[in-house]
């Protein structure tokens, strides 16, 4: 006897209304954001990124934010600040 079983899975929803940020051609005169996710050594990795980009471009300013915990998503206020103040943002996990 045939039986019909129900699909137990839930798919991820499409993220509505979120587009990829506008690309920047270079970082001369731009504000760079660095978001450290809170894992060990993520700050060292980002410092290297700052050095490398700083050597290649004339950065106007660098905004550094550290998440208090790697396990939690970034605070809305931190994300808003990065979006408001920065032309480009690099984030890094460490470990």
């Amino acid at each position, binding site marked *: *006897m*045939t*039986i019909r079983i*129900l699909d*137990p*899975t*839930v798919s991820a929803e499409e993220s509505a209304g979120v587009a990829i940020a506008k690309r920047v051609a270079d970082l001369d005169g731009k504000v760079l954001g660095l978001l450290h996710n809170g894992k060990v050594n993520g700050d060292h990795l980002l410092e290297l990124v700052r050095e490398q980009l700083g050597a290649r471009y004339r950065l106007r300013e660098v905004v550094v934010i550290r998440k208090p915990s790697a*396990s939690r*998503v970034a605070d809305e206020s931190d994300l808003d600040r990065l979006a408001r103040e920065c032309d480009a943002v690099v984030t890094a996990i460490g470990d």
Partner: protein
Amino acid sequence: MTLAAAEHEVAGWAEAIETYFERGWTDGLPVVPATAEAVRRFLEAAGRRPDDVVLRESTRRRTITAEKIAINAVMAGCRPEYMPVLLAALEAMADPAFTLHGAITSTGGSATLLVVNGPIRTRLGFNAGGNVFGPGWRANATLGRAIRLITLNCLGALPGLLDRSTQGHPGKYTFCIAELEEESPWEPLHVARGLPREASAVTVFAAEGPHNVLSHYGETAEAIVVAIADTMACLGSFSPGESFVVLAPEHVQILARDGWTRARLREALYAGARRTVADLKRGGKLPGAVEAGDEARWVHRGRGPDDIHLVVAGGGAGGHSAFIPSWSRERNSLAVTREIRA
């Protein structure tokens, strides 16, 4: 009652069980095929509509309805009347304090410990006695398993994809106990956490596996405290996180005989569960080399006595208690208690 889930026709029960394996919808063990008829019975028992939203997880962008919960509960082998416990546990896991996304993703490999309190324990047949973490009781085994199936199927925490546990632990199959309130000289966990005694409740905790605390020969409260505190101070699990201590009836009887209160035990365990900064550095728990003074600087497990949650459970014979450390190394995930409305 109209259901929304896609249906798959299969040749029979044996084929259905194989279909679940083929589609990657199990925890590695066979499941009970979930038919529409069974799922409707579970929803009716819960008094929920199929499209009631039970849980939203924003990072994984999942919205989980009562229907999907019921499907997975059937698959886990639950009875319909377990649904209110399952729904309360999921509501607790959705509390921001639990940090659901991190807890089910992390290399730390936690499982969700469920502790059931109140009259519902006996009504649904939960085991709080011998072999409390072990097999043999449907309510414990299938409720814990339902949590795992939902984590896999509804939250996408598939091993190697959105579950990056380095090792995990056996509690990830099922990890559900009840408190043996009748053997406790003190207030039970749900009362300590602010609910009335006559309420039924479930507490969830993103947890490592249990560490056995064998203490047979001291036969004094002091000896038991020394053994539990030493286990809580083990370097491998040492952190500022919360702790569960599941006391065997034999241990708690000695503590009560010697006049110990719940509060005094928590204070003594907090005081005893400590390591020197030198130890933490030698064990790779803190960065840097051991410096002058580090041998005399002490760090405690947790932030205070309130971070130690006490539960009584286990068989009548044997001096075996358990320490269950938090997955959270800091304060990212905390125990959450919810009343079961049944």
